[in-house]
Structure formats: C-alpha cells, structure tokens
C-alpha cells in the first residue's frame, strides 16, 4: 500500500530529527493531558504504528519514571469494513497482554487518512476490555477523513492529494506525489 520512498520523485516532509522531536513532544502532551501516567496504556496499530508506540512509551517512561507504561500492538485487518472488497494482507499478530478495562488507551498510528483504520481499531480494542477512555496519537495527519474521527496528538499536519503515497519511518517522512497514469 505505502511504497518505499526511494523513488526519485518523493519529497521529504519530515527529517529523522523532526520525527524524533515530534515523538518527544507527543510523549509530553500525553502525560500533560492525562495528568500523569496512571492507568495509561499505549497500543500501536500493526504495522506502521507499533514502532512509534514503542518510542512514545520509552519517552514517557524516561520522563515519568514512576511506573512502566504497558505497550501493546493491534492488528485491525479482521475488524476492517472493507473485507471482501479488496485482498486482505494481515499484519503481524496482535499482542495486548494486559487488561484494557478501566485504562486510558492511547492508540498510535503512523498516518491518519480516511479514519477507517482507527474505527476498526476502536472496535478491536473492545475485545480486550472496556477502556475508560481512548485517545489517538498519529505522526502524520494527511486529511481526507471519511468518518467523524479526529486525533488528540499530532506530529505534523500534512496536506496531501488523495492519491499521494506517504511513507513514515524513523528516518523521516516522505511523500510520493500522485501521478495520473493517463497523463
């Protein structure tokens, strides 16, 4: 789906240092918003969101040092609303080895686009308990929402064309512009 960014035409939207700073800021914002880390849990969405979730949790643990924030990973492919409409490729296996009931869960993904992945994630989370609250952290918000979903923590707002490819790694964020095949 998201192509690698080593094509000539892609442009750098965030550098590796930008990505690192955004993650540190989001970690601070999460603590500030929740008045600490009590009852906090971080869940990254497979696959693009998991490394960011790990990084955010590591930052939070460095800042607060009181308790280690539990980190999980969720694969939402079986909760999606487009099953049967396109081939499904499953991500890595979900792993949420703690009860989410009563927790404040921060869902982490790399790119927020239509919002359908986040909708699927909110449904999937309920399989693991009833969170007290669910918040959303994304590194990139690229717009084009199709559902009433908005992020609580954003690394960068990045206006894009619908057909653009956005690639996120710890090495930076790259956008490959949409090229109409007919032109």
């Amino acid at each position, binding site marked *: 789906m998201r192509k690698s960014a080593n094509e000539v035409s892609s442009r750098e939207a965030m550098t590796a240092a930008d990505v690192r700073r955004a993650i540190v800021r989001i970690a601070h914002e999460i603590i500030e918003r929740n008045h600490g880390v009590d009852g906090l849990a971080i869940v990254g969405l497979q696959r693009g969101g998991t490394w960011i979730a790990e990084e955010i949790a590591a930052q939070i643990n460095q800042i607060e040092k009181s308790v280690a924030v539990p980190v999980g990973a969720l694969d939402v492919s079986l909760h999606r609303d487009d099953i049967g409409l396109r081939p499904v490729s499953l991500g890595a296996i*979900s792993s949420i080895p703690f009860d989410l009931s009563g927790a404040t869960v921060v869902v982490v993904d790399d790119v927020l686009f239509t919002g359908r992945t986040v909708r699927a994630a909110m449904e999937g989370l309920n399989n693991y308990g009833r969170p007290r609250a669910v918040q959303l952290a994304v590194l990139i918000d690229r717009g084009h929402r199709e559902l009433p979903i908005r992020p609580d923590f954003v690394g960068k707002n990045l206006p894009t064309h619908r057909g653009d490819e956005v690639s996120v790694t710890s090495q930076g964020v790259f956008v490959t512009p949409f090229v109409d095949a007919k032109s």
Partner: protein
Amino acid sequence: MKHLRSIDELGLDGLNKLLQLTDHMAEINQRPVPKVPALRGRTVASLFFEDSTRTRLSFETAAKRLSADTMTFNVSTSSVNKGESLRDTVATITDMGVDAFVVRHKSVGIPWQISAWTTASIINAGDGAHQHPTQALVDCYTIREATHAQNFAGMKVTIVGDIKHSRVARSNIQAFSMLGAKVTLVAPPTLLPPDISHWPVDVSHDLDEVLAESDVLYMLRLQSERMAQGHVPTLREYSEQYGLTQKRVMGLRSNAIVMHPGPMNRGVEMQIDPSDVKNSLIHRQVANGVSVRMAVLFELLGSGSNLGGQA
C-alpha cells in the same frame, strides 16, 4: 483459494499460508472477547451425512467467532428421508444464499461433485476413506506449535493403526511429507490399503521396532465396525500389538509427541489414559481445531484472494 477439498489440491504454499493465518486466529481465541466481524453477512452451511462431534462443532464455533451465520443440516430430520437427492438438497440450500458448504459424506469425491452444482465454496470435512484436510491442518499446526519448527525436515512421524479406512491418515501423510517429515506406517497387513507403493512412506508391522526412533507417534482409531469384516482377529490381539501401553510409553523418546485425531477407543489403541503421557497433544489438537477452521473459512470467504481470480 476457492475450495478446500484435499491437501494435494491445497499444495505447500496454501498449507503454509493457512498455518500462518491460524496464528492470527489463535490470538483472537485468546482475547477476553474472542469474536471479530470479519465474515459478517456470510453464511456457512454444514452438510453432514456422517456423524461428527468435534469437526462439526469446531466449524460452527469458528464461523461464529468470525461473525458468519451458520446453518446446520441434520440428515436424520431432513427431506433426504423423503427421498430428496443430494443434488436437489444442495440446490435448495444454495438458493437460500450460502457462501460455503462444509461437507462430510461416506462416499469419496462428493465435495468435488457438489462444487459442480453450486457457486459456493466447498470445504471437505471428510469424504469416505479419502481426505480430511482440516484435520491434517490441525495436526500440522499442533506439531508446529509444540516443536516451534517451521517445517518438518528430518522429523520422523509414525502413524499407527487402521490406515486402510482412514481419511485422516491419507491427508496427514500428504501434509506431513509436504512439510518434509519422514512418515512410517505401522499396521497389520489387513489394515493397509492394497497398493501403497507410490505413497511417500515406509511400512512396518512392528510398533516396538520404530517406537524409539519416532518424534511423533500418531495413533489412529481402530474403527470397530471393521472387526466384523475380519480385518483383525480380536481386539485384544490388536491392542497387544498396536495399542499404546504404559510399557510402550516408556519406550518413547523423552521429547516424543503423542497424537490421536479422536474419537478415542480407550482400551483398544489407547491402553492408557492420554493424560498419563507426558507429551500428549490430544487436547491441543481439539483446541487448535477452532483456530485452524477459522483460518480456512477466512481464507475462502474473506481474504479477497478470489477477487479477480474468478468471474
């Protein structure tokens, strides 16, 4: 993948794909709420012309955990008793809007025949003494789970008992050898099929001889209805020679695995309580049955791997 009717039709790639998918399904079954909406709106019909407990129930559970609707066709209370043909029965159920049939029948080849009559996917849950592919998938997955081996290269699997009438044996021989295991069959000559020279197996008539070399000991049910047909002289003699006794358990390697597809004949092929065997995987086989069948249903009905492949 449109149908799952036999292991050779599935092939090694399909086998590995389904085993991988089963890992995902096993995780779902660990959740406090083990249900996903993946097959919402799909309908799965069970068409069992032969008795079954675990296969039918695990398919039904699997379908429900994926949010599919299920229909169960009970032969003894159906219009088959009024003389309705198999073809008409299939056509009738198809007209109600069914996406997959899970079929068990005493005759070989019925799943292939039915797939010519309906556009739905067909899953073979046992046809005569021919194939039982989901059981083979369950067994491969269970061995993989216990040994953490991605393939079975160099593994020695011994299958003991009524090979002749066993669809489980036929599917398992194909699947195990596809994954690289070396399969040895142990049975009295009367319980072996007439010509197995083209099967990828070794044959022995002496269980004690191969016991110490086996990594996996797979016990088959002695289908007691065969007794009347004179395939074995007495049950006692059979269990002396081919049953799993306490003495034989002692002769197993310390890490050897014991399996049985069920239903078990206690006192015949199983002379001991399976819970007394340290490495018995019989309960894992049942538990994994649901995850494996979820993987099969999802691959056929939800993965989208048929998109574009068929008109």
